[in-house]
């Protein structure tokens, strides 16, 4: 984060006389509680180094390899509880973006790339609020979508209403250089250039009406997303939650695809803590995958087959230093035998001030055509108040050979050094042997600079 960026952020986020009351409060502890606001900014720089091959080498071609040393920069900043002329603590700002430089020659990567992930301002006035800019909508009928537009909402007596609309953020990388399309009339490979997306054709709108108390909550949501050609997604969502006991929560959600009037997904779940040592969870999920495809996809009308999953999780905190995590799910598919997945892991923490964490996990996945067993060992150790490290080892055994290989393994490690309060440097490296690489070695250096500034009642 450059000093200029920090200065701009501070200027924008500075609340009206936010700091003056705090200074006064220090002198007179019983003065009126000072104003509060916070500004957080973070810069992360990643420098990677690895050699890669484009696998598997078409028709026996010699596999070309290339050295890669990409440099990524992520920046994010947000300010909260900033005063507005009409109301205290009523402005929030958020910005996040990333950029990449690819300094070495590459057949598939651009020399420069990047995107703005979020750039929004949130305003509150009484029970109403509005957010403008590049933002996201998540959960319910929308699932997850990013858009450039406006979201407004209001709450009153436990009820809340939200509405949004704008232009969908399109993936920048969907153009496919050198793309040949399989098929068409004579089974020849035709060069297929998808038409360039017109931004104006991609827009979305939606709304959510809900009710929320400490014991129950629920919402009904509608999401409509358009693409070139017409409706991309048009869903109705229902989400319910209840906390009948302090130790128990229940939830249900369903999403109705409005074109076919079929349930695209439905989920029931319950979490409980019957004893302080145990956490239990149970879940049922039904999904109809074709309904999650775009309505503009020809393939979306080729299937009505569903897929069901039922299972649960158990966490046992046997001792303060010993925890057991397990979960298991069974999947039912139409036309093939059932599948299953499960994990069991033991976590041990030794020491208190500078703890050592050991985690040993086993996973089993049984899926149509193939499955695998995996073991994972993780070790984390804080060496002193500035230095910490992790080591991990993964081993996989596949039920059926993948590209002729039955196993793969991977070893990874990190070392982090807190140079100062805001600055941390981390070095990481990994070595792997897999069906796709006799030896895969990668390394990365990360520098994280975190800038926090706050003015609020600090333990007055």
């Amino acid at each position, binding site marked *: 984060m450059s000093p200029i960026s920090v200065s701009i952020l501070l200027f924008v986020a500075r609340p009206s006389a936010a700091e003056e009351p705090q200074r006064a*409060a*220090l002198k007179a502890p019983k003065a009126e509680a000072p104003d*509060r606001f916070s500004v957080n900014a973070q810069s992360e720089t990643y420098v990677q180094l690895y050699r890669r091959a484009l*696998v598997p080498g*078409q028709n026996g071609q010699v596999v070309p390899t290339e050295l890669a040393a990409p440099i990524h920069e992520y920046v*994010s900043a947000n300010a909260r509880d900033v005063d507005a002329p009409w109301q205290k603590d009523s402005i929030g700002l958020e910005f996040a973006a990333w950029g990449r430089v690819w300094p070495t020659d590459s057949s598939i990567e651009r020399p420069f790339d990047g*995107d703005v992930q979020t750039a*929004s301002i949130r305003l509150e006035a009484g029970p109403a609020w509005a957010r403008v800019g590049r933002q*996201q*909508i998540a959960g*319910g009928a929308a699932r*997850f979508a990013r858009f450039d537009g406006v979201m407004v909402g209001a709450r009153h007596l436990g009820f809340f209403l939200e509405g949004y609309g704008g232009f969908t953020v399109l993936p*920048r990388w969907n153009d496919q250089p*050198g793309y*040949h*399309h399989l*098929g*068409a009339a004579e089974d020849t490979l035709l060069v297929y250039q998808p038409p360039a997306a017109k931004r104006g054709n991609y827009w979305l709108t939606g709304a*959510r009406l809900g009710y929320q108390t400490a014991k129950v909550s629920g919402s009904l*949501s509608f999401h409509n997303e358009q693409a070139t050609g*017409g409706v991309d997604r048009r869903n109705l969502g229902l989400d319910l939650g209840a906390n009948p006991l302090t130790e128990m929560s229940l*939830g249900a959600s369903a999403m109705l695809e409005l074109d*076919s009037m079929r349930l695209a997904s439905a989920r029931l779940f319950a979490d409980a803590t019957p004893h302080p040592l145990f*956490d239990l969870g149970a*879940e049922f999920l039904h999904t109809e*995958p*074709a309904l999650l*495809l775009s*309505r*503009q996809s020809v393939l979306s009308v*080729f*299937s*009505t*087959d569903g897929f069901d999953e039922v299972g649960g*999780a158990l966490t046992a905190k046997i001792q303060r230093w010993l925890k057991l995590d397990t979960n298991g799910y069974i*999947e039912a598919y139409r036309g093939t035998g059932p*599948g299953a*997945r499960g994990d069991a892991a033991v976590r041990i923490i*030794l*020491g*208190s001030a500078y703890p050592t964490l050991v*985690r040993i996990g086993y996973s089993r*996945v049984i899926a*149509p055509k*193939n499955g695998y067993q995996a073991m994972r*060992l*993780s070790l984390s150790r*804080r060496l002193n*108040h500035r230095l*910490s490290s992790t080591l991990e080892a*993964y*081993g996989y055994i596949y039920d059926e050979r993948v590209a002729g290989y039955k196993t793969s393994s991977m070893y990874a490690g*990190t070392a982090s050094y807190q140079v100062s309060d805001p600055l941390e440097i*981390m070095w990481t490296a990994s070595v*792997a042997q*897999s069906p796709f690489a006799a030896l895969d070695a990668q390394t*990365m250096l990360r520098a994280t600079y975190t800038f926090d500034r706050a003015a609020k009642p*600090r*333990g*007055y």
Partner: protein
Amino acid sequence: MSARFPVFLLWLALTLAAFAACRSESGPARFPHQVHLAGIACGVPGKPACLSCVSCHDVVTHDSGQRMPRAAVCERCHQDTHQVKAVLAVAPIRPSGEIAIDHDKHLAMPEIRGQCVPCHAGVVDAKRPPLPPMSQCFTCHEHEQQWAQAQCTPCHESEALRRTMPVTFLKHDTGFLRHHGSVMAERQQAQLCQSCHTQAQCQACHDVTQDLKVETRRPEKIESGQVHRGDFMVRHAIEARSEPARCLSCHTVQGCDSCHVARGVSANVANPLNPHPPEWVGTNTSSSNFHGAVARRDIVACAGCHEAGPATNCIRCHKVGAYGGNPHPRGWKSARGVDQEMCRYCHE
């Protein structure tokens, strides 16, 4: 390479890790509060005055960093300045960050009568945390309205919330990761999740247009439920078959093929290798290798390569009048008319 070799390496690493863990230093010892408060002869002639919490801690000060005793306080009794510095260098762990609490006001309340230990029981009981858990605050403060609205500030500082995992309310356990989308929907989105999280944090996982995966950005988070950790490159085909459509939570089907094409492993490149078995297409529809049933079971996997709008090669056989037959399964229906653009690809 022998199949046993990686397993052997894994067990070797496991043994070494267990050995290292057992030998690990536990760091500086917990400060012996009980000895100072009750284990020292005091208050009689020839002995020092008895200590209380405020003998060392200035609890009235605003800044919690200033509430820890200064070295000079310890050095009134302890001559070993090196040891004093080592003890004071260890800051107490504040799992929930700073809490806004008026100590002066609390100590003056008749229920508390100036006693620190009822809240800070951990200073004399090694089995309890030195700082009170939130349930301790809730024995007096109900905060029902704030609880209902998940309003954590101003008791918690907003930046501390980014590092604080809920323990009781909305417990973020293993199951939570699976249904957090539903929790987001049923409550006020802007109020609940964003009291701790920023949108950028959501996008660290969900924005697949970014170049670095969250697993690459956060390799030190060995306990987080990151989906793509380890050798996901090999596993991803198995995972996609295991839970059809789960990938669509973040990825578009176009994303599958744009990655496959870029790396030369798609059928949609020049000189492709056909990934399908014999009799995948053709006239032998009774073959177990025939594509129909497989496609209906996991149409998303088909879309991973064949999603290309009007250029989809499925149309060649399955359009109206062609020999592939009606691809719409039993029970399928649509509110759209056949004059819609997508429908017209087949219903010319």
